[in-house]
């Protein structure tokens, strides 16, 4: 088993016929992901990558039983695309798009408050991966290995780094969730950790955060009270200066509480296996698991 996406997910691609959408849809199909079609307004009725194109998400839901969507729509239209998916009854909406205006996301979040059955992952994220079943994102498939470690991360390539270390250490992944690097994201670190904590097929969780905001601290406090499996944590940006945005719009140190040091201290106090070096994520997970089983 796994969380969020699996081999039975009926997945559509919003922004299907665009350059990014086409390329990554092709990669996902090649991995064996169950892509049932895509949406590009005005191109409904056509066929693309041997899959049907729909004008609206609603049409994709009605005709192809879509329950999951991945969004590659440009930033200025992406907020609208998320709301369209939620309105059509899509259960899991994964938004890859980077650069959505913050005020658009403020509106989207408010809209989603009235759609309790819809879960948004992202935006500005690499997507969600359940190895061997469904690759719903832009991550390289081959570094993954089906297994029992869940990964939650705000970053793209740093997630791949963690995945690779887990695989090289002889383990595999249950589901990897890229929650995204923006100030407002649909699924928080805590939400994602909780999903993996409740997943019977996940034995350990790797939580990768970065400077800015309080998501890691919130998750840590929950973990302290509710953890049933080991959690390994890393915070990127220990050397980042205050007040500067480091690539991700959400990665900015605003106060004393959102520095890497402060977050790592809280994580440590909450019983998380904190790694200082990003090179030790995989090996620390292995040791942590051994400790639990012994």
């Amino acid at each position: 088993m796994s969380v969020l996406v699996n081999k039975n997910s009926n997945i559509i691609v919003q922004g299907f016929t665009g350059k990014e959408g086409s390329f990554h849809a092709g990669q996902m199909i090649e991995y064996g992901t169950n892509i049932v079609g895509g949406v590009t307004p005005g191109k409904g009725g056509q066929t693309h990558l041997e899959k049907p194109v729909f004008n609206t998400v609603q049409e994709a839901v009605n005709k192809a039983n879509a329950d999951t969507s991945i969004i590659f729509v440009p930033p200025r239209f992406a907020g609208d695309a998320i709301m369209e998916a939620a309105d059509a009854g899509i259960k899991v909406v994964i938004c890859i798009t980077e650069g959505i205006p913050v005020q658009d996301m403020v509106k989207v979040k408010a809209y989603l408050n009235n759609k309790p059955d819809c879960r948004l992952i992202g935006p500005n994220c690499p997507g969600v991966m359940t190895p061997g079943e469904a690759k719903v994102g832009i991550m390289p498939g081959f570094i993954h290995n089906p297994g029992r470690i869940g990964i939650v991360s705000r970053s793209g390539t740093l997630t791949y780094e963690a995945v690779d270390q887990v695989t090289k250490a002889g383990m595999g992944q249950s589901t990897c969730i890229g929650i995204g690097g923006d100030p407002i994201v649909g699924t928080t670190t805590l939400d994602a950790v909780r999903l993996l904590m409740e997943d019977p097929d996940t034995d350990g969780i790797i939580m990768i955060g970065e400077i800015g905001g309080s998501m890691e601290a919130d998750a840590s406090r929950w973990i302290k009270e509710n953890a049933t499996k080991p959690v390994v944590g890393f915070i990127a940006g220990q050397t980042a200066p205050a007040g500067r945005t480091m690539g991700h719009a959400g990665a900015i140190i605003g106060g004393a509480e959102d520095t890497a040091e402060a977050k790592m201290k809280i994580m440590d106090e909450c019983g998380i296996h904190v790694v200082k070096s990003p090179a030790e994520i995989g090996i620390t997970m292995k040791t942590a698991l051994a400790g639990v089983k012994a």
Partner: protein
Amino acid sequence: MNLHEYQGKNLLKEYGVAIQDGIVAHTPEEAQAAYNTLKERTKSDMAVVKAQIHAGGRGKGGGIKLVKNFEELKTESSNILGMMLKTPQTPGGMEGPGKQVNKVLIAEDAYAPDFDACEEYYVSILMDRERKCNVIIYSTEGGMDIEKVAEETPHLVHKEYVDPTLGLQGFQMRKIAFNLGLSGQAFKEMTKFINSLYKAFIGSDASLFEINPTLKTGDDRIIAVDCKVSLDENALFRHKDLEELRDTSEEDATEVEAKSYGLNYVNLDGNVGCMVNGAGLAMATMDIIKLSGGEPANFLDVGGTADAARVEQAFRIILKDPAVKAILINIFGGIVRCDRVAQGVVDAYKNMGDAIKVPIIVRLQGTNADIAKDIIDNSGLEVHSAIQLQEAADLVKQVLA
């Protein structure tokens, strides 16, 4: 993207927010003309000369001067224009080199004629990350450092959250005005001020408005005396007019150049440069440099296409910093193939001839990592290669020793 005070005030004015009157000047002559024009409007000899740079605390470094007559205006505007202004927020703080002042705002003395009847307040608007909505923060303790007020007298800092679907409501504007202790005409003025200010915030896709001080004048008007405005870079596509206000002379020259190549670069104070794909991995790479005994000289995200042209641009950007003693390239090749990146590194290195005088460590992991390592190792260049992140860290330690 940050605006100058005078640009921010112009933006506020367009939305009907009352502001301290003023005229921007680039030369002493312009400053004198501005003073005369302003004098006709205010019927007062008093004025304020305000240095226009992107940093707060300008008064502390002598960047804001009250002048009582034309002679004083001439002296102060000539002094301030061209000065290297040091404030607690300029690079290096009060000990640093300061920032050159290229523009001054000649502004009315909004506190005249009845200084004692004036009151200063603090008002700011920003997006609250926890609640995922906009918040108006306000206080009776204007003109001061709000972080200090929040720490010492937290009960004097109020917050009003705005419902994203409904927008700012009338009762909220009234609540703010009441909490600031206002009544009569000043109360009405404050509700109007807050209403217009919030419209300006939404209308410009701002990420921060800070109006400190917000002034109640002797005749009960509410006006913005200073303003700090930051705009959401991601929303500039719908604000072409605001995008034109960008003052690149206020930004780090190398960062501006990097941006023109599509590289996301932040200059730092260390000795090991780095070139990485992805923001999170870039921050993690900076951290590993520190753990290996170095200090990161920069943050640099090359993005998804790490080809020879891009790698060469990134090399040139990093090498502009004379403090750089080594460069660590860390690429996790997923969609982008490592052998292509390796070839890019080799080509860029060869193209640059003698320009590279520091050791280079290349860590390529992911698609075709082994082929990439062979390309680097067989290139005959002074480049160290690694596949595992730990190996790269060890190499950094080795070249710094």
